[in-house]
């Protein structure tokens, strides 16, 4: 998978349903039955996703969870990579096209 650029923006795939279990946020794509479970960090990224570039997401995360920007950026890139692989997000403008 190509590296995720700091300026990249992503959109949630339309139709993905969320179930908030407090301790985790469970995502389910009804079309593919793909499931994904997000912890508190993942939930924060998912909620902030629409319209925010990767570097801004990392900045938000560093502030909210009291970690370094570099650590937050690694976490955001890893999470977005996993969500992309699961088909739950797409580069902004491409969501829902596949």
């Amino acid at each position, binding site marked *: 998978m190509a590296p995720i650029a700091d300026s990249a923006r992503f959109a949630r795939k339309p*139709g993905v*349903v*969320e*179930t*908030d*279990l407090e*301790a*985790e946020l*469970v995502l*389910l794509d*009804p*079309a593919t*039955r793909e*499931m994904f*479970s997000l912890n508190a960090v993942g939930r924060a990224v998912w909620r902030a996703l629409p319209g925010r570039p990767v570097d801004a997401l990392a900045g938000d995360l560093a502030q909210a969870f009291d970690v370094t920007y570099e650590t937050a950026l690694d976490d955001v890139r890893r999470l977005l990579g996993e969500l992309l692989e699961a088909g739950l997000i797409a580069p902004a403008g491409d969501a*829902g096209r596949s």
Partner: protein
Amino acid sequence: MPAAPDVVTFALLGRRLAARGADARLAAWLHGAWDHPPCSAAPLPYEIEITLAAAGPPVAPAAWPETDVAIPGHVLRFRSDGHRWQTGDPAAGLRLELHEAGARIACWRGPGEESPPPAWYHGLYVAVTEAVRASGLVPLHAAVASRGGETVAWLGSSGVGKSTTLLFAAEAGWRAIAEDLCWLEPGTLRVYGWDRGVRCRPETLERFFPHFADAPPAPDGKRIVAYERLGGDAAREGTLTELVLLGRADGGPSRRTDVRSRDVVRALWEATGVPLGEASRAVTSAAVERLSRLPAGRLVLGPPPLPLAGARGADQASEG
């Protein structure tokens, strides 16, 4: 085509369904699929209005995104602008529109469409279901039974053993509420049994419940055991207290095991189905979240007896 009353109307889970222009075939289908005895669902001033005409509204614009709806054995393609959903073609189809106090379902069948394709009825079923969802109720595909203050929903895919589990539960003194489908009030977790009888394979009846082997056959080859034969009172309602996911044993005995939250979530979305619209999707999502917080476990189905113990009780259903 036989004559039918111009307006078919009846109560549906506290809502009102009214069909205008229905011919005898459509009237019979509506009564068979949706006209159930009264239940204690809170009355709501919500009307599902169905009209049948020879021609439909203008074809859905190609710009309306397509969405596929999977129902058992079929996939229906709808086009929607987010407020209206349309399926079919100029010869036979329907359009659903939701508004605050109800839903309108405009159906059409051309003069040459005396016998509309099964997909037409499947589409109508999806549309009425969506209308009921939009009014605040959620369909739940599960076997449900009640005993001693607890009401358990057994969840699982078709063929996993919901009906058999329900019959074992009834034999053990549980009150059967639903074999496969009930409607849920998310705020109260009250469920209303919706199927007319317990459908079960003949070989299952002969093996475990021979006293029901004379039950009448269903069109799909299964047999239908009337709820009256299962004893208990007639009220097929209850308030859910526990969820149990059903699975097949790999040769071992029937047993209870733990279950992960995410597996419960998946089973619940599969049991409720995913609605067409955002509003009813939000209702369903809230229901799934609420249900996910109930005590839950897994029942691995092997030979009887089945450990049907609920969260607050303990009993075993013995072989019938």
